[in-house]
């Protein structure tokens, strides 16, 4: 297949074409310094494809912050039905790390039981990826997610001046290009993008270990001083897990109308960093201390689920540390663990 180039006008037309058939969601600038968010496109000119990272990951479009799972009418007997709302949607301008994150949730949500709401939404979701701009916090290169070779229908690699090299991932992606007259890329353009992507693999924030070995570095680390050291300033505010593209946990709450005629069971985002996450009805808290929660979060991402599903449940997007007010940093934690297991003491401890 020839490699094609889409220019600024082409991108605009592509978005307009997609809008004919689906809701299109893309990064937009938000108030504040260097802030972006995925938002429904109303004016294609407002899309901002050159962005660092969004506040929330795109998982919210398949796993909304709050969604109704079951609706019921009270009465004898009560009548309950599943609520599964899905619509055609295109996520336009998704970074490789976030594509990786969506894939992580695909695996977890379809493991053994298949979450009907996630699956229905994902089935109608199309992805147009775009390559990213690194910031001081992300570490996708270390996690091996700086590039992805699946999980998108189209992928755009910047050439400058609003033009992109188009990579087609699926048949649906090819169809998206129908009617757009795209020129063929020159060899120089292809080479330039290749070169950039190769460099991308080496970035500053590195984990001092082959990521494939990470689960090993967690063995025997339950009692490591690393956890208490890093948890000292933690608020248990949950920001890190709520903004994480690979976090999946939720709470379920019941809402009943004030006339007591009907109700819903809704799920809302939850997170294991929150104090009451593991409290049982008798009042016992199985992860009472901050460090225990921090430890669980990291074990889960880099050891438990890694071992279970064969990939780290961290895409290196850096949202957690960027938005954590005290910048508790998985890279620093991992490197401390690695240093410790390589025989050194915890750095700075």
């Amino acid at each position, binding site marked *: 297949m020839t490699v094609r180039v889409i220019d600024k006008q082409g991108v605009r037309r592509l978005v307009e074409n997609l809008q004919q058939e689906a809701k299109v969601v893309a990064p937009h600038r938000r108030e504040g*310094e260097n802030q972006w968010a995925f938002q429904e496109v109303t004016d294609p000119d407002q899309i901002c494809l050159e962005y660092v990272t969004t506040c929330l990951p795109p998982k919210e479009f398949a796993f909304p912050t709050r969604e109704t799972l079951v609706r019921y009418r009270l009465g004898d007997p009560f009548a309950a039905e599943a609520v599964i709302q899905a619509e055609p949607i295109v996520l336009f301008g998704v970074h490789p790390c976030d594509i990786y994150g969506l894939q992580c949730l695909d695996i977890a949500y379809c493991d053994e039981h298949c979450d009907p709401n996630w699956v229905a939404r994902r089935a109608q979701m199309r992805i147009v990826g775009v390559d990213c701009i690194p910031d001081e916090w992300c570490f996708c290169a270390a996690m091996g997610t700086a590039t992805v070779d699946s999980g998108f229908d189209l992928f755009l690699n910047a050439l400058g001046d609003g033009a992109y090299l188009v990579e087609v991932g699926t048949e649906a992606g090819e169809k998206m290009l129908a009617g757009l007259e795209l020129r063929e890329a020159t060899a120089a353009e292809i080479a330039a993008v290749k070169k950039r992507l190769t460099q991308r693999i080496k970035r500053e924030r590195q984990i001092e270990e082959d990521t494939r070995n990470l689960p090993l570095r967690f063995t025997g680390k339950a009692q490591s001083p690393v956890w208490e050291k890093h948890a000292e300033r933690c608020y248990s505010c949950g920001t890190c897990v709520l903004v994480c593209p690979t976090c999946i946990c939720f709470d379920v709450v019941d809402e009943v109308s004030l006339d*007591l005629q009907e109700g819903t069971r809704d799920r809302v985002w939850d997170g294991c960093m929150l104090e009451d996450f593991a409290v049982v009805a008798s009042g016992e808290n199985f992860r009472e201390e901050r460090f225990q929660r921090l430890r669980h979060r990291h074990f889960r991402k880099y050891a438990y689920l890694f071992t279970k599903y064969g990939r780290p449940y961290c895409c290196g997007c850096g949202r957690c540390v960027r938005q954590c007010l005290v910048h508790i940093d998985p890279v620093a934690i991992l490197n401390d663990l690695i240093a410790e297991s390589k025989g050194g003491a915890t750095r700075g401890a």
Partner: protein
Amino acid sequence: MKPRVAVFSFTSCEGCSLAILECENELLDVINLVDFVRWREAMTETSDEIDIAFVDGSISTHEDVRKLQEIREMSKMLIALGACAHTTCITGLKNRFGMSQVKEIVYGPDGAQFDTIPARPLRAVVPVDFELPGCPIDRGEFLRCVRDLALGKKPKLPNYPVCVECKRKGNVCVFFKGMKCMGPVARAGCGALCPSFGDYCEACRGFVDNPNEESHKETLTEHGLTVQEVMNYFTLFNAYDESQI
């Protein structure tokens, strides 16, 4: 039988009682769930047989203490309505001064005749069954509380900070806009109202069970507040300190 509900006010702006009247869309449903039997602001009748008493205001005179004890006697359940009743809200700021000093400052030499004691939350005077925080209360939370009581459920408050709701709303954290926020230690339940409107959280709902206060004081200082300003942030709605009365 519908629960008999009363609303009482102590030292406050009465905004929390008024917030009940601001449930305009739901008020008729509420009246179907409960019977209002006593509410000075809204009605003339009174009654002494009360299932649920909603009480707003902090307790700041000897007379307040006596009346609150009376209300406790006649009510099966007593619910603190809003920040004044829960944390003393801003009424606790006068506690920074000695009471005779306050009276002297305000009324001059005649001050001694006035009855004022350091402001305290309801629970410092009588047992309280539930506290609805916020300045003013969150209407949704109030309605859920009434509904839960009607259903025989125990009303619950979230024990996570405002940041959680702020994230669920997809807000840009106001720290990225140069403001300083109390969200990381403040108890959620308001839907991160203030940050959602571009403002910062002032912790009007009090703190979570185990706030990391030390960490947050450091954070605020790192973001440029002076020690006095940090104190102000922590005390605007939460000046009440048990050990001071």
